[in-house]
Protein backbone atom coordinates (compact mmCIF):
# COMPACT_ATOMS: atom_id res chain seq x y z
CA UNK A 1 0.00 0.00 0.00
CA UNK A 2 1.16 3.51 -0.72
CA UNK A 3 4.50 4.87 -1.73
CA UNK A 4 7.58 3.95 0.20
CA UNK A 5 10.04 6.68 1.02
CA UNK A 6 13.57 6.70 -0.30
CA UNK A 7 14.81 9.78 1.53
CA UNK A 8 15.41 8.11 4.90
CA UNK A 9 19.01 7.60 5.93
CA UNK A 10 19.77 3.90 6.38
CA UNK A 11 20.18 2.73 9.99
CA UNK A 12 19.01 6.11 11.31
CA UNK A 13 16.81 6.23 14.41
CA UNK A 14 13.12 6.74 13.51
CA UNK A 15 12.82 9.69 15.87
CA UNK A 16 15.55 11.55 17.69
CA UNK A 17 14.92 14.68 19.77
CA UNK A 18 17.79 16.34 21.58
CA UNK A 19 17.29 19.14 24.16
CA UNK A 20 14.26 20.52 22.35
CA UNK A 21 12.53 23.59 23.73
CA UNK A 22 9.59 25.44 22.24
CA UNK A 23 7.99 28.64 23.47
CA UNK A 24 4.43 29.73 22.69
CA UNK A 25 4.72 33.41 23.56
CA UNK A 26 5.44 33.46 27.28
CA UNK A 27 4.45 29.83 27.74
CA UNK A 28 7.10 27.14 27.55
CA UNK A 29 5.48 24.34 25.55
CA UNK A 30 8.43 21.98 25.60
CA UNK A 31 11.28 22.26 28.03
CA UNK A 32 14.68 20.81 27.13
CA UNK A 33 13.07 17.59 25.96
CA UNK A 34 15.17 14.64 24.79
CA UNK A 35 13.56 11.55 23.35
CA UNK A 36 14.35 8.64 21.08
CA UNK A 37 11.84 6.28 19.51
CA UNK A 38 12.42 2.82 18.06
CA UNK A 39 10.11 0.99 15.63
CA UNK A 40 6.81 -0.09 17.17
CA UNK A 41 3.95 1.71 18.88
CA UNK A 42 4.64 4.24 21.62
CA UNK A 43 1.90 6.03 23.53
CA UNK A 44 2.34 9.69 24.43
CA UNK A 45 0.57 10.51 27.66
CA UNK A 46 0.11 13.66 29.66
CA UNK A 47 -2.53 16.03 30.90
CA UNK A 48 -3.77 19.01 28.85
CA UNK A 49 -0.99 21.54 28.32
CA UNK A 50 1.73 18.99 29.03
CA UNK A 51 3.22 19.49 25.55
CA UNK A 52 1.90 16.45 23.63
CA UNK A 53 0.54 18.33 20.63
CA UNK A 54 3.55 20.68 20.58
CA UNK A 55 5.87 17.68 20.42
CA UNK A 56 3.79 16.09 17.65
CA UNK A 57 3.71 19.33 15.67
CA UNK A 58 7.50 19.57 15.99
CA UNK A 59 8.02 15.96 14.89
CA UNK A 60 5.75 16.46 11.89
CA UNK A 61 7.54 19.66 10.88
CA UNK A 62 4.63 22.03 11.52
CA UNK A 63 6.64 23.85 14.19
CA UNK A 64 10.33 24.62 14.39
CA UNK A 65 12.19 24.10 17.70
CA UNK A 66 13.50 27.26 19.43
CA UNK A 67 16.48 25.29 20.74
CA UNK A 68 17.69 21.75 20.22
CA UNK A 69 17.14 19.57 17.21
CA UNK A 70 14.81 16.88 15.91
CA UNK A 71 15.58 14.26 13.32
CA UNK A 72 13.31 11.76 11.67
CA UNK A 73 15.35 8.93 10.17
CA UNK A 74 18.29 11.33 10.23
CA UNK A 75 16.42 14.14 8.42
CA UNK A 76 15.06 17.42 9.76
CA UNK A 77 11.23 17.06 9.66
CA UNK A 78 10.86 20.80 8.89
CA UNK A 79 12.31 20.19 5.40
CA UNK A 80 10.26 18.87 2.50
CA UNK A 81 12.39 15.71 2.46
CA UNK A 82 11.45 15.10 6.08
CA UNK A 83 7.74 15.38 5.29
CA UNK A 84 8.03 12.27 3.11
CA UNK A 85 8.81 10.25 6.19
CA UNK A 86 6.05 11.40 8.52
CA UNK A 87 2.33 10.75 8.30
CA UNK A 88 0.55 13.05 10.74
CA UNK A 89 -3.05 12.97 11.87
CA UNK A 90 -3.42 16.20 13.86
CA UNK A 91 -5.93 17.00 16.55
CA UNK A 92 -7.48 19.70 14.40
CA UNK A 93 -10.84 19.62 12.75
CA UNK A 94 -10.55 22.04 9.85
CA UNK A 95 -11.24 20.74 6.36
CA UNK A 96 -12.36 21.99 2.97
CA UNK A 97 -16.09 21.77 3.70
CA UNK A 98 -17.32 21.65 0.10
CA UNK A 99 -15.11 18.70 -0.87
CA UNK A 100 -16.20 15.10 -0.54
CA UNK A 101 -14.03 12.63 1.37
CA UNK A 102 -12.90 11.08 -1.91
CA UNK A 103 -12.11 14.45 -3.52
CA UNK A 104 -10.21 15.50 -0.43
CA UNK A 105 -8.04 12.40 -0.40
CA UNK A 106 -7.56 12.46 -4.20
CA UNK A 107 -6.37 16.07 -4.11
CA UNK A 108 -4.15 15.41 -1.11
CA UNK A 109 -2.63 12.47 -2.99
CA UNK A 110 -2.07 14.71 -5.99
CA UNK A 111 -0.38 17.37 -3.82
CA UNK A 112 1.72 14.68 -2.16
CA UNK A 113 3.09 13.50 -5.47
CA UNK A 114 1.13 10.32 -6.23
CA UNK A 115 0.90 9.77 -9.98
CA UNK A 116 -2.61 10.56 -11.22
CA UNK A 117 -3.11 7.10 -12.75
CA UNK A 118 -2.30 5.48 -9.38
CA UNK A 119 -4.70 7.67 -7.40
CA UNK A 120 -7.98 5.71 -7.95
CA UNK A 121 -6.55 2.34 -6.91
CA UNK A 122 -4.70 3.87 -3.95
CA UNK A 123 -7.86 5.61 -2.77
CA UNK A 124 -9.95 2.45 -3.05
CA UNK A 125 -7.40 0.63 -0.95
CA UNK A 126 -7.10 3.32 1.72
CA UNK A 127 -10.83 4.05 1.95
CA UNK A 128 -11.37 0.33 2.52
CA UNK A 129 -8.69 0.22 5.21
CA UNK A 130 -10.17 3.12 7.20
CA UNK A 131 -13.76 2.01 6.60
CA UNK A 132 -14.93 4.98 4.54
CA UNK A 133 -15.64 3.22 1.22
CA UNK A 134 -19.41 3.41 1.56
CA UNK A 135 -19.44 7.13 2.44
CA UNK A 136 -16.66 8.37 0.17
CA UNK A 137 -18.88 10.81 -1.71
CA UNK A 138 -20.16 12.50 1.46
CA UNK A 139 -19.20 16.16 1.71
CA UNK A 140 -16.79 16.84 4.56
CA UNK A 141 -19.13 19.41 6.08
CA UNK A 142 -21.77 16.70 6.43
CA UNK A 143 -19.40 14.11 7.93
CA UNK A 144 -19.59 13.09 11.58
CA UNK A 145 -16.60 13.64 13.85
CA UNK A 146 -15.75 9.95 13.54
CA UNK A 147 -15.80 10.07 9.73
CA UNK A 148 -13.56 13.13 9.68
CA UNK A 149 -11.24 11.38 12.13
CA UNK A 150 -10.97 8.42 9.77
CA UNK A 151 -10.37 10.79 6.85
CA UNK A 152 -7.43 12.27 8.79
CA UNK A 153 -6.00 8.82 9.43
CA UNK A 154 -6.45 7.99 5.73
CA UNK A 155 -4.55 11.19 4.92
CA UNK A 156 -1.74 10.21 7.31
CA UNK A 157 -1.22 6.81 5.68
CA UNK A 158 -1.67 8.07 2.11
CA UNK A 159 2.05 8.08 1.33
CA UNK A 160 2.80 4.96 3.39
CA UNK A 161 5.31 6.79 5.60
CA UNK A 162 7.61 4.87 7.98
CA UNK A 163 6.71 7.16 10.93
CA UNK A 164 3.10 7.79 11.92
CA UNK A 165 2.15 10.52 14.36
CA UNK A 166 -1.45 10.25 15.52
CA UNK A 167 -2.84 12.91 17.85
CA UNK A 168 -5.96 11.64 19.63
CA UNK A 169 -6.90 9.21 16.82
CA UNK A 170 -9.68 7.51 18.82
CA UNK A 171 -11.58 10.72 19.52
CA UNK A 172 -15.10 10.51 18.09
CA UNK A 173 -14.70 6.99 16.70
CA UNK A 174 -17.32 4.38 17.66
CA UNK A 175 -16.32 1.15 19.51
CA UNK A 176 -16.23 -0.97 16.34
CA UNK A 177 -14.12 1.67 14.62
CA UNK A 178 -11.76 1.76 17.60
CA UNK A 179 -11.29 -1.97 17.46
CA UNK A 180 -10.56 -1.75 13.71
CA UNK A 181 -8.13 1.12 14.26
CA UNK A 182 -6.28 -0.82 16.97
CA UNK A 183 -6.00 -3.76 14.55
CA UNK A 184 -4.79 -1.46 11.77
CA UNK A 185 -2.10 0.10 13.96
CA UNK A 186 -0.97 -3.33 15.13
CA UNK A 187 -0.67 -4.33 11.46
CA UNK A 188 1.47 -1.27 10.79
CA UNK A 189 3.61 -2.18 13.78
CA UNK A 190 4.07 -5.66 12.33
CA UNK A 191 5.28 -4.02 9.09
CA UNK A 192 8.07 -2.35 11.08
CA UNK A 193 6.63 1.14 11.23
CA UNK A 194 7.20 3.55 14.09
CA UNK A 195 3.97 4.93 15.53
CA UNK A 196 3.51 7.62 18.17
CA UNK A 197 -0.06 7.84 19.48
CA UNK A 198 -1.45 10.33 21.95
CA UNK A 199 -4.77 9.58 23.53
CA UNK A 200 -6.91 9.91 26.60
CA UNK A 201 -8.55 6.57 25.72
CA UNK A 202 -6.26 4.51 27.92
CA UNK A 203 -8.24 1.36 27.39
CA UNK A 204 -7.29 1.47 23.69
CA UNK A 205 -3.72 2.51 24.45
CA UNK A 206 -3.24 -0.49 26.71
CA UNK A 207 -4.46 -2.73 23.88
CA UNK A 208 -1.92 -1.13 21.57
CA UNK A 209 1.31 -0.94 23.50
CA UNK A 210 3.20 -1.23 26.74
CA UNK A 211 5.61 1.53 25.76
CA UNK A 212 4.67 4.97 27.05
CA UNK A 213 6.27 8.38 27.10
CA UNK A 214 4.79 10.57 29.79
CA UNK A 215 5.01 14.34 29.52
CA UNK A 216 4.49 16.88 32.23
CA UNK A 217 5.07 20.62 31.87
CA UNK A 218 6.89 20.06 28.61
CA UNK A 219 9.31 17.49 30.01
CA UNK A 220 9.54 13.72 29.75
CA UNK A 221 8.81 12.43 33.25
CA UNK A 222 8.90 8.79 32.24
CA UNK A 223 9.70 6.75 29.15
CA UNK A 224 9.52 2.97 28.85
CA UNK A 225 7.10 0.22 29.87
CA UNK A 226 3.90 1.30 31.65
CA UNK A 227 4.85 -0.72 34.75
CA UNK A 228 8.13 1.13 35.14
CA UNK A 229 6.43 4.50 34.75
CA UNK A 230 3.83 3.58 37.31
CA UNK A 231 6.43 2.43 39.86
CA UNK A 232 8.65 5.42 39.31
CA UNK A 233 5.89 7.96 39.60
CA UNK A 234 4.16 6.32 42.54
CA UNK A 235 7.43 6.17 44.48
CA UNK A 236 8.40 9.76 43.87
CA UNK A 237 8.20 11.76 47.15
CA UNK A 238 5.83 14.69 47.36
CA UNK A 239 5.74 17.69 49.64
CA UNK A 240 2.82 18.57 51.90
CA UNK A 241 2.31 22.08 53.24
CA UNK A 242 0.88 22.30 56.74
CA UNK A 243 -0.12 25.70 58.10
CA UNK A 244 -1.22 26.16 61.69
CA UNK A 245 -2.52 29.13 63.64
CA UNK A 246 0.06 29.37 66.48
CA UNK A 247 3.63 29.55 65.30
CA UNK A 248 5.19 28.86 68.71
CA UNK A 249 4.19 25.22 68.43
CA UNK A 250 5.64 24.65 64.95
CA UNK A 251 8.93 23.13 66.16
CA UNK A 252 7.09 20.73 68.46
CA UNK A 253 4.88 19.78 65.55
CA UNK A 254 7.91 19.21 63.29
CA UNK A 255 9.43 16.78 65.80
CA UNK A 256 6.16 14.89 66.18
CA UNK A 257 5.65 14.57 62.41
CA UNK A 258 9.19 13.28 61.91
CA UNK A 259 8.42 10.35 64.19
CA UNK A 260 5.98 8.98 61.58
CA UNK A 261 7.66 6.15 59.58
CA UNK A 262 6.34 7.42 56.19
CA UNK A 263 7.77 10.92 56.64
CA UNK A 264 11.10 11.38 54.84
CA UNK A 265 11.85 14.89 56.10
CA UNK A 266 10.51 18.26 57.19
CA UNK A 267 11.56 21.85 56.61
CA UNK A 268 10.49 25.31 57.73
CA UNK A 269 10.28 27.63 54.72
CA UNK A 270 11.89 31.06 55.16
CA UNK A 271 9.51 33.93 55.87
CA UNK A 272 6.54 31.68 56.63
CA UNK A 273 6.49 31.19 60.41
CA UNK A 274 3.26 29.21 60.50
CA UNK A 275 4.14 26.72 57.76
CA UNK A 276 5.76 23.30 57.91
CA UNK A 277 6.72 21.40 54.75
CA UNK A 278 6.56 17.59 55.04
CA UNK A 279 8.20 15.23 52.53
CA UNK A 280 6.61 11.79 52.07
CA UNK A 281 5.89 8.99 49.59
CA UNK A 282 2.54 8.20 51.20
CA UNK A 283 0.68 11.52 51.46
CA UNK A 284 -2.66 9.88 52.32
CA UNK A 285 -1.17 8.21 55.46
CA UNK A 286 0.59 11.37 56.56
CA UNK A 287 -2.57 13.39 56.04
CA UNK A 288 -4.54 11.28 58.53
CA UNK A 289 -1.60 11.31 60.96
CA UNK A 290 -1.51 15.11 60.89
CA UNK A 291 -5.25 15.40 61.44
CA UNK A 292 -5.04 13.04 64.46
CA UNK A 293 -2.15 15.08 65.87
CA UNK A 294 -4.12 18.31 65.53
CA UNK A 295 -7.01 16.84 67.51
CA UNK A 296 -4.76 15.34 70.22
CA UNK A 297 -2.64 18.48 70.69
CA UNK A 298 -5.48 20.93 70.19
CA UNK A 299 -4.03 23.17 67.48
CA UNK A 300 -5.95 24.57 64.54
CA UNK A 301 -4.90 23.62 61.00
CA UNK A 302 -5.33 26.46 58.51
CA UNK A 303 -4.04 24.68 55.43
CA UNK A 304 -3.08 21.12 54.60
CA UNK A 305 -2.30 20.32 50.95
CA UNK A 306 0.12 18.78 48.50
CA UNK A 307 2.01 21.76 47.08
CA UNK A 308 2.85 20.41 43.63
CA UNK A 309 0.80 18.13 41.39
CA UNK A 310 1.58 14.70 42.77
CA UNK A 311 2.75 12.15 40.22
CA UNK A 312 0.34 9.73 41.85
CA UNK A 313 -2.52 12.03 40.93
CA UNK A 314 -1.25 12.31 37.37
CA UNK A 315 -1.13 8.55 37.11
CA UNK A 316 -4.56 8.29 38.64
CA UNK A 317 -6.07 10.74 36.20
CA UNK A 318 -4.38 9.06 33.27
CA UNK A 319 -4.88 5.42 34.07
CA UNK A 320 -7.97 5.29 36.21
CA UNK A 321 -9.83 8.47 35.31
Amino acid at each position, binding site marked *: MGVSSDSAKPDAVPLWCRKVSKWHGNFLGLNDLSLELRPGITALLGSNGSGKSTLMNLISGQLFPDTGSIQVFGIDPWTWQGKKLVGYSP*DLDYFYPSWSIKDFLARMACLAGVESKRVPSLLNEILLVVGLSSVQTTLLRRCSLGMRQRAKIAHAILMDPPLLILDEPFRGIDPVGRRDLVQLLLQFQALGKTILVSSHELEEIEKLTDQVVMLRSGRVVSAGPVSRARDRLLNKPVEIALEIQANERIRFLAQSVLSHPEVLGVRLPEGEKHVLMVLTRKPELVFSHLVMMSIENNFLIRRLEVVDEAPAEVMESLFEG
Partner: protein
Amino acid sequence: MEFLKSFIHGVKSQLAVHLFRARVGHGLFWVSVGFLLLVAGVVVSVNLKNQWNYKTLKPRGQVGLNFKNSIEMIEVGSLVLGHNAGVSAVCSAVASAGSGLLIQSGLPVFTKNVVFSVLLGFLLPLWCLTFAVEGLGAEREGKTLFWLFSKPVPRSSIYVGKFLAILPWVLIWSLGGFFVLAVCAGDCGLFAFKLFWQPIALASVTYASVFFFMGACLPRASLIALAYAFVVETLLGSMPGSLKQLSVAFYARCIMFQKSADLGVVLEQGGGYGDFSETMAICFMMGIALLFLVAGIFFFGKIELRGQR
Protein backbone atom coordinates in the same frame (compact mmCIF):
# COMPACT_ATOMS: atom_id res chain seq x y z
CA MET B 1 18.42 18.94 -8.97
CA GLU B 2 16.18 16.99 -6.59
CA PHE B 3 14.91 20.29 -5.18
CA LEU B 4 14.10 21.58 -8.66
CA LYS B 5 12.24 18.41 -9.52
CA SER B 6 10.26 18.61 -6.30
CA PHE B 7 9.63 22.34 -6.82
CA ILE B 8 8.24 21.78 -10.31
CA HIS B 9 6.08 18.94 -9.06
CA GLY B 10 4.80 21.14 -6.21
CA VAL B 11 3.86 23.96 -8.58
CA LYS B 12 2.18 21.58 -11.02
CA SER B 13 0.17 19.83 -8.32
CA GLN B 14 -0.99 23.15 -6.83
CA LEU B 15 -2.11 24.23 -10.30
CA ALA B 16 -3.87 20.90 -10.86
CA VAL B 17 -5.77 21.16 -7.57
CA HIS B 18 -6.46 24.89 -7.32
CA LEU B 19 -6.42 26.39 -10.86
CA PHE B 20 -10.14 26.09 -11.54
CA ARG B 21 -11.28 26.33 -7.96
CA ALA B 22 -11.07 30.01 -7.08
CA ARG B 23 -13.61 30.90 -4.44
CA VAL B 24 -16.30 33.21 -5.78
CA GLY B 25 -19.36 34.34 -3.97
CA HIS B 26 -17.57 35.74 -0.91
CA GLY B 27 -18.18 39.29 0.32
CA LEU B 28 -15.38 41.03 -1.55
CA PHE B 29 -16.40 39.35 -4.81
CA TRP B 30 -19.88 40.82 -4.63
CA VAL B 31 -18.48 44.22 -3.65
CA SER B 32 -16.33 44.05 -6.83
CA VAL B 33 -19.32 43.08 -8.94
CA GLY B 34 -21.34 45.90 -7.40
CA PHE B 35 -18.73 48.54 -8.19
CA LEU B 36 -18.33 47.23 -11.74
CA LEU B 37 -22.08 47.52 -12.33
CA LEU B 38 -22.18 50.98 -10.74
CA VAL B 39 -19.33 52.37 -12.85
CA ALA B 40 -20.63 50.63 -15.98
CA GLY B 41 -24.00 52.29 -15.40
CA VAL B 42 -22.38 55.73 -15.14
CA VAL B 43 -20.32 55.08 -18.28
CA VAL B 44 -23.42 54.00 -20.21
CA SER B 45 -25.32 57.10 -19.13
CA VAL B 46 -22.42 59.34 -20.24
CA ASN B 47 -22.29 57.45 -23.52
CA LEU B 48 -26.01 57.92 -24.08
CA LYS B 49 -25.53 61.68 -23.73
CA ASN B 50 -22.63 61.47 -26.23
CA GLN B 51 -20.31 63.20 -23.79
CA TRP B 52 -17.05 61.24 -24.26
CA ASN B 53 -15.40 64.32 -25.80
CA TYR B 54 -14.43 67.93 -25.06
CA LYS B 55 -17.73 69.40 -26.33
CA THR B 56 -18.92 70.45 -22.90
CA LEU B 57 -15.47 71.38 -21.55
CA LYS B 58 -14.26 74.96 -21.55
CA PRO B 59 -10.87 75.99 -22.98
CA ARG B 60 -8.35 77.07 -20.31
CA GLY B 61 -8.95 80.66 -19.18
CA GLN B 62 -12.32 80.96 -20.97
CA VAL B 63 -15.48 81.88 -19.14
CA GLY B 64 -18.90 81.03 -20.51
CA LEU B 65 -18.14 79.26 -23.81
CA ASN B 66 -17.26 75.59 -24.03
CA PHE B 67 -15.27 73.99 -26.86
CA LYS B 68 -18.34 73.23 -28.93
CA ASN B 69 -19.69 76.79 -28.57
CA SER B 70 -16.27 78.21 -29.42
CA ILE B 71 -16.04 76.24 -32.63
CA GLU B 72 -19.57 77.20 -33.56
CA MET B 73 -18.63 80.85 -32.98
CA ILE B 74 -15.66 80.48 -35.30
CA GLU B 75 -17.88 78.86 -37.94
CA VAL B 76 -20.35 81.75 -37.63
CA GLY B 77 -17.39 84.13 -37.86
CA SER B 78 -16.27 82.59 -41.13
CA LEU B 79 -19.76 83.19 -42.55
CA VAL B 80 -19.97 86.74 -41.24
CA LEU B 81 -16.52 87.54 -42.58
CA GLY B 82 -17.33 85.90 -45.92
CA HIS B 83 -16.47 89.12 -47.82
CA ASN B 84 -12.84 88.67 -46.67
CA ALA B 85 -11.83 85.45 -48.39
CA GLY B 86 -8.55 85.04 -46.51
CA VAL B 87 -9.97 85.49 -43.01
CA SER B 88 -13.00 83.36 -43.87
CA ALA B 89 -10.75 80.53 -45.11
CA VAL B 90 -8.66 80.64 -41.92
CA CYS B 91 -11.82 80.60 -39.76
CA SER B 92 -13.23 77.65 -41.73
CA ALA B 93 -9.96 75.74 -41.41
CA VAL B 94 -9.79 76.36 -37.64
CA ALA B 95 -13.44 75.34 -37.23
CA SER B 96 -12.93 72.13 -39.24
CA ALA B 97 -9.78 71.22 -37.33
CA GLY B 98 -11.60 71.92 -34.03
CA SER B 99 -14.55 69.75 -35.05
CA GLY B 100 -12.17 66.96 -36.00
CA LEU B 101 -10.43 67.25 -32.66
CA LEU B 102 -13.75 67.11 -30.82
CA ILE B 103 -14.68 63.90 -32.63
CA GLN B 104 -11.31 62.35 -31.71
CA SER B 105 -11.27 63.65 -28.13
CA GLY B 106 -13.08 60.56 -26.80
CA LEU B 107 -9.85 58.68 -26.02
CA PRO B 108 -8.28 61.26 -23.67
CA VAL B 109 -11.61 62.05 -22.03
CA PHE B 110 -12.49 58.38 -21.38
CA THR B 111 -8.91 57.54 -20.36
CA LYS B 112 -8.55 60.44 -17.96
CA ASN B 113 -11.98 60.12 -16.34
CA VAL B 114 -12.43 56.36 -16.30
CA VAL B 115 -9.14 54.51 -16.84
CA PHE B 116 -6.74 56.85 -14.99
CA SER B 117 -8.95 57.79 -12.08
CA VAL B 118 -11.67 55.19 -11.47
CA LEU B 119 -10.17 52.02 -12.96
CA LEU B 120 -6.51 52.34 -11.96
CA GLY B 121 -7.09 54.33 -8.80
CA PHE B 122 -9.86 52.21 -7.34
CA LEU B 123 -11.49 49.39 -9.30
CA LEU B 124 -8.39 47.50 -10.42
CA PRO B 125 -6.83 47.18 -6.92
CA LEU B 126 -10.22 46.09 -5.58
CA TRP B 127 -10.74 43.49 -8.31
CA CYS B 128 -7.22 42.12 -7.92
CA LEU B 129 -7.38 41.82 -4.16
CA THR B 130 -10.70 39.98 -4.47
CA PHE B 131 -8.92 36.90 -5.77
CA ALA B 132 -5.30 37.48 -4.73
CA VAL B 133 -5.89 37.89 -0.99
CA GLU B 134 -8.12 34.82 -1.04
CA GLY B 135 -5.37 32.67 -2.61
CA LEU B 136 -3.58 31.66 0.58
CA GLY B 137 -5.50 34.02 2.88
CA ALA B 138 -8.53 31.72 2.73
CA GLU B 139 -6.30 28.79 3.74
CA ARG B 140 -4.95 30.84 6.66
CA GLU B 141 -8.38 31.98 7.78
CA GLY B 142 -9.91 28.53 7.28
CA LYS B 143 -6.95 26.96 9.15
CA THR B 144 -6.41 24.48 6.31
CA LEU B 145 -2.75 25.37 5.70
CA PHE B 146 -1.79 22.16 7.50
CA TRP B 147 -3.01 20.11 4.56
CA LEU B 148 -0.60 21.98 2.28
CA PHE B 149 2.30 22.11 4.74
CA SER B 150 2.23 18.38 5.39
CA LYS B 151 3.11 17.58 1.78
CA PRO B 152 6.66 16.61 0.76
CA VAL B 153 7.19 19.60 -1.51
CA PRO B 154 9.11 22.84 -0.87
CA ARG B 155 7.03 25.62 0.67
CA SER B 156 8.19 27.90 -2.14
CA SER B 157 6.46 25.63 -4.68
CA ILE B 158 3.20 25.86 -2.72
CA TYR B 159 3.45 29.66 -2.78
CA VAL B 160 4.35 29.91 -6.47
CA GLY B 161 1.82 27.24 -7.47
CA LYS B 162 -1.02 28.92 -5.62
CA PHE B 163 0.00 32.32 -7.05
CA LEU B 164 -0.05 30.97 -10.60
CA ALA B 165 -3.40 29.31 -9.88
CA ILE B 166 -5.07 32.61 -8.94
CA LEU B 167 -3.38 34.66 -11.66
CA PRO B 168 -5.78 33.69 -14.51
CA TRP B 169 -8.72 34.65 -12.30
CA VAL B 170 -7.17 38.02 -11.52
CA LEU B 171 -6.45 38.68 -15.20
CA ILE B 172 -9.86 37.52 -16.41
CA TRP B 173 -11.62 39.65 -13.82
CA SER B 174 -9.44 42.75 -14.41
CA LEU B 175 -9.35 42.68 -18.20
CA GLY B 176 -12.94 41.47 -18.33
CA GLY B 177 -14.05 44.39 -16.15
CA PHE B 178 -12.05 46.84 -18.26
CA PHE B 179 -13.61 45.37 -21.40
CA VAL B 180 -17.13 45.75 -19.99
CA LEU B 181 -16.45 49.44 -19.24
CA ALA B 182 -14.91 49.87 -22.70
CA VAL B 183 -17.94 48.34 -24.40
CA CYS B 184 -20.22 50.58 -22.33
CA ALA B 185 -18.25 53.64 -23.47
CA GLY B 186 -18.53 52.78 -27.16
CA ASP B 187 -15.87 53.36 -29.82
CA CYS B 188 -13.55 55.49 -27.68
CA GLY B 189 -13.69 52.85 -24.92
CA LEU B 190 -12.88 49.99 -27.27
CA PHE B 191 -10.03 52.02 -28.74
CA ALA B 192 -8.73 52.65 -25.20
CA PHE B 193 -9.02 48.94 -24.42
CA LYS B 194 -6.97 47.99 -27.50
CA LEU B 195 -4.36 50.57 -26.59
CA PHE B 196 -4.14 49.99 -22.83
CA TRP B 197 -4.93 46.34 -22.10
CA GLN B 198 -1.24 45.51 -21.70
CA PRO B 199 -0.48 48.04 -18.91
CA ILE B 200 -3.75 47.03 -17.23
CA ALA B 201 -2.70 43.37 -17.40
CA LEU B 202 0.77 44.19 -16.05
CA ALA B 203 -0.71 46.30 -13.24
CA SER B 204 -3.05 43.40 -12.42
CA VAL B 205 -0.13 40.98 -12.11
CA THR B 206 1.71 43.45 -9.87
CA TYR B 207 -1.34 44.01 -7.68
CA ALA B 208 -1.87 40.25 -7.54
CA SER B 209 1.68 39.76 -6.27
CA VAL B 210 1.28 42.46 -3.59
CA PHE B 211 -2.11 41.24 -2.39
CA PHE B 212 -1.16 37.58 -2.57
CA PHE B 213 1.79 38.34 -0.28
CA MET B 214 -0.56 40.04 2.17
CA GLY B 215 -2.97 37.11 2.12
CA ALA B 216 -0.23 34.56 2.67
CA CYS B 217 1.83 36.32 5.31
CA LEU B 218 -0.33 38.80 7.22
CA PRO B 219 -3.26 38.34 9.58
CA ARG B 220 -6.48 40.18 8.67
CA ALA B 221 -5.12 40.42 5.16
CA SER B 222 -8.36 41.58 3.53
CA LEU B 223 -8.53 44.65 5.75
CA ILE B 224 -4.84 45.46 5.25
CA ALA B 225 -5.21 45.03 1.48
CA LEU B 226 -8.27 47.28 1.37
CA ALA B 227 -6.44 49.90 3.45
CA TYR B 228 -3.44 49.67 1.07
CA ALA B 229 -5.71 49.99 -1.97
CA PHE B 230 -7.40 53.12 -0.69
CA VAL B 231 -4.46 54.84 1.00
CA VAL B 232 -1.63 54.06 -1.41
CA GLU B 233 -3.34 53.50 -4.74
CA THR B 234 -6.34 55.83 -4.49
CA LEU B 235 -5.06 58.67 -2.30
CA LEU B 236 -1.28 58.70 -2.80
CA GLY B 237 -1.67 57.67 -6.44
CA SER B 238 -3.71 60.78 -7.21
CA MET B 239 -1.58 63.27 -5.25
CA PRO B 240 0.53 65.87 -7.02
CA GLY B 241 4.31 65.64 -6.82
CA SER B 242 6.47 62.56 -6.53
CA LEU B 243 4.53 60.81 -3.74
CA LYS B 244 2.37 59.12 -6.34
CA GLN B 245 5.45 57.18 -7.48
CA LEU B 246 4.84 54.92 -4.46
CA SER B 247 1.73 53.53 -6.10
CA VAL B 248 1.63 50.79 -8.73
CA ALA B 249 -1.01 52.75 -10.64
CA PHE B 250 1.53 55.52 -11.34
CA TYR B 251 3.70 53.21 -13.47
CA ALA B 252 0.69 51.86 -15.35
CA ARG B 253 -0.28 55.48 -16.08
CA CYS B 254 3.26 56.18 -17.30
CA ILE B 255 2.95 53.37 -19.85
CA MET B 256 -0.46 54.62 -20.95
CA PHE B 257 0.89 58.15 -21.18
CA GLN B 258 3.66 56.97 -23.50
CA LYS B 259 1.33 54.87 -25.61
CA SER B 260 -1.09 57.72 -26.17
CA ALA B 261 1.76 60.19 -26.71
CA ASP B 262 2.91 57.95 -29.57
CA LEU B 263 -0.47 58.71 -31.17
CA GLY B 264 -0.02 62.42 -30.54
CA VAL B 265 -2.47 62.55 -27.61
CA VAL B 266 -1.30 64.10 -24.34
CA LEU B 267 -3.39 62.56 -21.57
CA GLU B 268 -2.45 64.72 -18.59
CA GLN B 269 -0.21 67.74 -18.45
CA GLY B 270 2.21 68.05 -15.54
CA GLY B 271 1.41 64.72 -13.91
CA GLY B 272 5.00 63.55 -14.10
CA TYR B 273 3.95 60.58 -16.22
CA GLY B 274 6.34 61.58 -18.97
CA ASP B 275 9.35 61.32 -16.64
CA PHE B 276 9.45 57.53 -16.91
CA SER B 277 9.89 55.80 -20.22
CA GLU B 278 7.63 52.87 -21.05
CA THR B 279 10.50 50.43 -20.53
CA MET B 280 11.36 51.93 -17.14
CA ALA B 281 7.75 51.77 -16.00
CA ILE B 282 7.47 48.13 -17.10
CA CYS B 283 10.70 47.33 -15.23
CA PHE B 284 9.41 49.07 -12.08
CA MET B 285 6.13 47.15 -12.12
CA MET B 286 7.83 43.82 -12.80
CA GLY B 287 10.35 44.62 -10.08
CA ILE B 288 7.57 45.28 -7.53
CA ALA B 289 5.82 42.04 -8.53
CA LEU B 290 9.06 40.08 -8.23
CA LEU B 291 10.00 41.72 -4.94
CA PHE B 292 6.71 40.74 -3.31
CA LEU B 293 6.90 37.25 -4.81
CA VAL B 294 10.37 36.68 -3.32
CA ALA B 295 9.39 38.26 0.01
CA GLY B 296 6.30 36.06 0.09
CA ILE B 297 8.30 32.91 -0.60
CA PHE B 298 10.72 33.87 2.21
CA PHE B 299 8.13 34.67 4.87
CA PHE B 300 5.74 31.89 3.86
CA GLY B 301 8.61 29.43 4.26
CA LYS B 302 8.94 30.46 7.91
CA ILE B 303 5.28 30.21 8.94
CA GLU B 304 4.66 27.88 11.84
CA LEU B 305 1.20 26.48 12.39
CA ARG B 306 0.47 27.89 15.82
CA GLY B 307 -3.03 28.07 17.20
CA GLN B 308 -4.43 25.82 14.50
CA ARG B 309 -6.78 24.15 16.88
